[in-house]
């Protein structure tokens, strides 16, 4: 809905090529950006302005690619939406880019005007004006403006106007209550919402690439099965409604099918990978081996599937064609691999690996070459890609003790270079995070 609003109301959106960026292998030097006060003439609009400035500043800083120059240093304090900035003043405090905006009320809602300047080249590089029909959309507008700034300066697709679905956890570790929950990518408490009531255990939610659907596993009546949760209606629908456990679901790139594991009682409860067509409800078996086959994840072009199998003795990563042909092992290192997830850019597989008593989250090329560990700890799991393929979220669990203490589990964000890790706050413990596509 908001996308439509924005498209209609932009009166100008420069679409030039990206400016100079400093993204390289390894550590990225964050680009300094100054963000003026977002001006509002009355108390409401001033409040909206403060909220927007905070969202934009936090988003850009959290990306690791920017930092907001401290406001106390700003020499010029004017609203620079209609006025040309004194670029020398901003150069002096080493701001490379400058964002200014104001908020006012009109009869259609809240009007936001924004200007983005390249300080060193002393020119305006982006401007927009939009009307926000409803105060409740302020946060999303803040994310959208953040995306525009991020895209304009880095040349990469943004990821701020997105959501994270995850499993909220509370209670003793042997009687954990697990609920589906959803929030903005920044974890802001105002955006946080529970989707299920905790009566049934839920695990491993994943977004549909282009629909407002989540597929996940739920123990309804103690029967573990794959379900789909419709974010628009709140309805839940079973996907694998036949005897035997279904689990480890993920959507195909066109959101028309779900690939998942099915543990068939007529096959000695050995987990095989199946494709479930959501329109016809027919299922296709893709693997056939006496080992466990699970954790399937489609390539973004829909041609291949990476999955986890212990067919060779220990759990490793394999790739196959979408019809199950041409199975090839790709993991080459020592250790026990799991959780493979294909990057949205198509070039990398994220995974977990257990070796020498620790879990590792890493990435490898799709042929298994160039394996790189990004983070290592006692318990790490569930890597999920940002929609632009630059970041991963995952969960990290502490050791637990016989007296029931410990075991805290939290959701983390990290650049795939291994830098800029931070916690995404959740009101309770959080696990199994998954990222939505750009909204």
């Amino acid at each position, binding site marked *: 809905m908001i996308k439509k609003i924005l498209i209609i109301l932009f009166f100008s959106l420069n679409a030039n090529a990206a400016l100079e960026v400093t993204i390289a292998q390894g550590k990225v030097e964050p680009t300094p950006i100054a963000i003026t006060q977002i001006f509002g003439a009355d108390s409401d609009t001033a409040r909206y302005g403060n909220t927007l400035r905070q969202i934009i500043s936090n988003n850009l800083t959290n990306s690791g690619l920017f930092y907001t120059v401290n406001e106390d240093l700003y020499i010029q304090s004017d609203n620079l939406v209609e006025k040309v900035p004194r670029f020398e003043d901003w150069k002096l405090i080493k701001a490379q880019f400058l964002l200014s905006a104001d908020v006012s009320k009109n009869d259609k809602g809240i009007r936001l005007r924004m200007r983005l300047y390249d300080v060193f080249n002393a020119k305006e590089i982006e401007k927009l004006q939009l009307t926000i029909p409803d105060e409740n959309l302020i946060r999303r507008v803040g994310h959208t403006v953040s995306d525009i700034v991020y895209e304009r300066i880095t040349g990469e697709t943004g990821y701020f106007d997105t959501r994270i679905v995850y499993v909220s956890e509370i209670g003793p570790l042997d009687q954990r209550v697990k609920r589906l929950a959803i929030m903005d990518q920044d974890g802001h408490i105002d955006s946080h919402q529970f989707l299920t009531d905790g009566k049934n255990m839920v695990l491993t939610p994943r977004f549909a690439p282009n629909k407002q659907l989540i597929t996940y596993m739920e123990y309804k009546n103690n029967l573990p099965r794959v379900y789909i949760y419709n974010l628009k209606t709140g309805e839940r629908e079973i996907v694998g409604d036949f005897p035997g456990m279904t689990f480890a679901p993920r959507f195909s790139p066109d959101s028309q099918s779900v690939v998942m594991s099915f543990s068939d009682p007529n096959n000695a409860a050995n987990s095989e990978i199946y494709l479930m067509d959501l329109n016809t409800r027919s299922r296709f078996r893709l693997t056939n081996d006496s080992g466990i086959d699970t954790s399937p994840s489609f390539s973004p072009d829909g041609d291949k599937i990476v999955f986890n199998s212990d067919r060779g003795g220990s759990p490793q990563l394999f790739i196959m064609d979408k019809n199950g042909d041409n199975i090839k092992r790709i993991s080459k290192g020592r250790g026990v691999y*799991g959780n493979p997830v294909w990057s949205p850019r198509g070039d990398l597989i994220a995974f977990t690996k257990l070796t020498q008593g620790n879990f590792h989250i890493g990435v490898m090329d799709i042929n298994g070459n160039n394996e790189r560990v990004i983070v290592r700890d006692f318990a790490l799991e569930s890597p999920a890609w940002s929609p632009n393929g630059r970041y991963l979220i995952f969960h990290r669990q502490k050791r637990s003790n*016989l007296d029931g203490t410990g075991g805290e589990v939290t959701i983390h964000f990290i650049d795939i270079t291994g830098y800029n890790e931070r916690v995404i706050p959740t009101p309770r413990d959080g696990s199994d995070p998954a990222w939505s596509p750009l909204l």
Partner: protein
Amino acid sequence: MLIVAGFFLASCAATKTEQGGDVDAASASASSSSGGEITAGTQEDLIVNVGDRVFFEFDSSELTVDAQATLDAQAAWLMQYPDTNITVEGHADERGTREYNLALGDKRAFSVYSYLAQAGIDTNRMEYVSWGKERPDVIGSDETAYSQNRRGVTLVSN
């Protein structure tokens, strides 16, 4: 006597965590602490006089010799109480991914289920379910806990 006491301790620990069992921790510990009679054919009877669970090696769903002996006793017990239905739960330790452990838990549960079926228990009396690593019996991040958590548990469901 010591052995009996040990079984009672195990029963207290076990009954509080399992899903779907009809024996709760309070009644189990009440009868054990008071030394009261155990009703034949109940979960408590199974725990104390037979053994409700078998343990697995790391990343394995094969039944050990000990496990088979326990299941032989369970089968005999189930023959003795033909109106008793059961659910077999398969569990894993925490040192694996959630999804792999769900698969492993299901293979473990099925190992127990099919062993009992081969021993003559009607499959209409049995269900099985995997809990992966989601319901540890012993909390802790060490091998002592893990070895207790890699288990198949037989629960009386009626």
